[in-house]
């Protein structure tokens, strides 16, 4: 729909795009405690469809905690307590009766350290579809190919799908993990410092991939690397001591931040 309008009338494009981009995830006064440690304080953020939202900030600022709250992975830590809400497509994910299994099918995650299963490449990608009940070999084959193509690694591994994923390089493993995440056909993809364990070339590949993937998915990425945030994201949130200091268009954050602390951080004065 968007594309058709674009072709007919270039001037309407921008207007239409803004209207069509709806909010996928939104947090309202979200708070989180680890025991008595108040790790996230009144977080208000919203993530828009088909955008890359980057979260930056120094170590211990709560950025990883926040992204893990978005698919409730943070609940694996037993002492966690939350208040306020995070909604996915208008539904509070912390509400009673919202099953985490359902949420995580829609909100997938790629982790900091590549964590493929010690299985074949094929079984890694087919893991998600299989747990959701797909047994048909032909459908699984198609999902595996589509996901590996989606993660730009099909050509590298198509001849050795039955080999153990652990035999791949770190960068390839991470793209396998991205493909595995795509295989459950999520709506949102959360990436928790996905390139921090990778070499520069693999990092570049993952960054290019993120750019391609946002056509279809909404992406939230936590990163240590400010240049990375500047390169790949549409919006950037700067976290400090569990608070959102500033959240704006990435261009604005990196050129004319409105808060002094943001400016200090991005100019490398601390962190």
């Amino acid at each position, binding site marked *: 729909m968007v594309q058709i309008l674009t072709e007919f009338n270039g001037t309407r494009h921008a207007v239409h795009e803004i209207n069509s981009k709806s909010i996928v995830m939104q947090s309202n006064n979200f708070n989180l405690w680890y025991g008595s440690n108040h790790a996230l304080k009144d977080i208000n953020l919203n993530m828009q469809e088909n955008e890359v939202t980057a979260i930056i900030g120094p170590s211990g600022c709560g950025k990883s905690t926040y992204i893990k709250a978005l*698919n409730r*992975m943070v609940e*694996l830590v*037993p002492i966690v307590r939350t208040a306020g809400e995070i909604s996915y497509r208008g539904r509070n994910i912390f509400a009673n009766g919202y099953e*985490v*299994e*359902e*949420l*995580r*099918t829609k909100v*997938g*995650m790629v*982790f900091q*350290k590549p*964590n*493929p*299963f*010690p*299985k074949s490449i094929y079984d890694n990608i087919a*893991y*998600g579809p*299989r*747990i*959701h009940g797909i047994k048909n070999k032909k459908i699984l084959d198609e999902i595996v190919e589509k996901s590996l193509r989606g993660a730009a690694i099909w050509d590298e591994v198509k001849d050795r799908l039955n080999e*153990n994923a*652990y035999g791949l390089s770190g960068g390839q493993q991470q793209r396998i*993990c991205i493909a*595995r*995440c795509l295989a*459950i056909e999520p709506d949102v993809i959360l990436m928790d410092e996905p390139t921090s364990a990778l070499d520069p070339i693999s990092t570049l590949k993952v960054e290019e991939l993120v750019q391609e993937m946002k056509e279809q998915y909404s992406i939230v990425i936590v990163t240590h690397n400010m240049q990375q945030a500047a390169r790949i994201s549409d919006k950037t949130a700067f976290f400090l001591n569990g608070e959102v200091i500033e959240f704006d268009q990435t261009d604005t954050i990196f050129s004319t931040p409105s808060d002094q602390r943001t400016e200090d951080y991005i100019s490398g004065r601390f962190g």
Partner: protein
Amino acid sequence: MRYIQEDLVMKRMNKRLISNKVWKFIFFIATSFALVSLGMLLYRIISQGIGFLDWEFITNFASRIPENAGIKAALIGSLWLMSVVAPVSIILGVSTAIYLEEYAKQNKLNDFIRMNISNLAGVPSIVFGLLGLTIFVRLFGFEKSILAAGLTMSLLILPVIIVAAQEAIRAVPNEQREASFGMGATKWQTIVRVIIPAAIPGILTGSILALSRAIGETAPLVVIGIPVILQFLPTGYLDTFTALPMQIFDWAKRPQEAFQYVASAGIIVLMVVLLTMNSIAIFIRNKFQKRY
């Protein structure tokens, strides 16, 4: 002002190097001690027993004449015993380990349970024998059967299997669980598809080693009152039976010298069974480890 003075360093150098060699020697002696004892034991058993070890020894029942004595009833009895112990202890043990590691919350009660399972592994086997006698033989009325002895042995090795399985499960990296949960898998799916396959080498190795302990254990069988001289084979789980260590114990305490050699032959059979089981454990561990 330098803190490290070269002449002092050189003066102490010799002493350090000597103490380095002395410690290496001490550790080597400690290792040799175990190996030499094992070698002597094996030599004595094999040289005494090999004369009595022939096919008839395997196929004959026990006898008052040493030349005719055989181990058939005990060998078959031990296999029957294992057919109870293996499924009961592995199913209960692995399930318990999964519960404790994956489901049980961190609280004082569960810490207490975890600690006591480890303690249970150190309880003398004769105590388990008395427990089995009270519960399975008398209370449940299983008499001196394979079932009563098998359940008693299962209780005896259960703590060992639980601890081994817990360690194997704990060794599965958390990232693997996160990867599975992150795709919307339930806890059960994660356990079946990720955790168990990764932990199975450790679980099987621990289980087989525990089973080989059960096959060599005598005290609980003595307490239960398992007979030693049987001229028939069991046909069901409620039949009575005899087992390898019981038979060996009986031969060893007989006055005739020839029976000492029969006992040695019995020990060789028992050790072959044990070594076979341990080799299977090692084989399984290596085979699965290659895949992961």
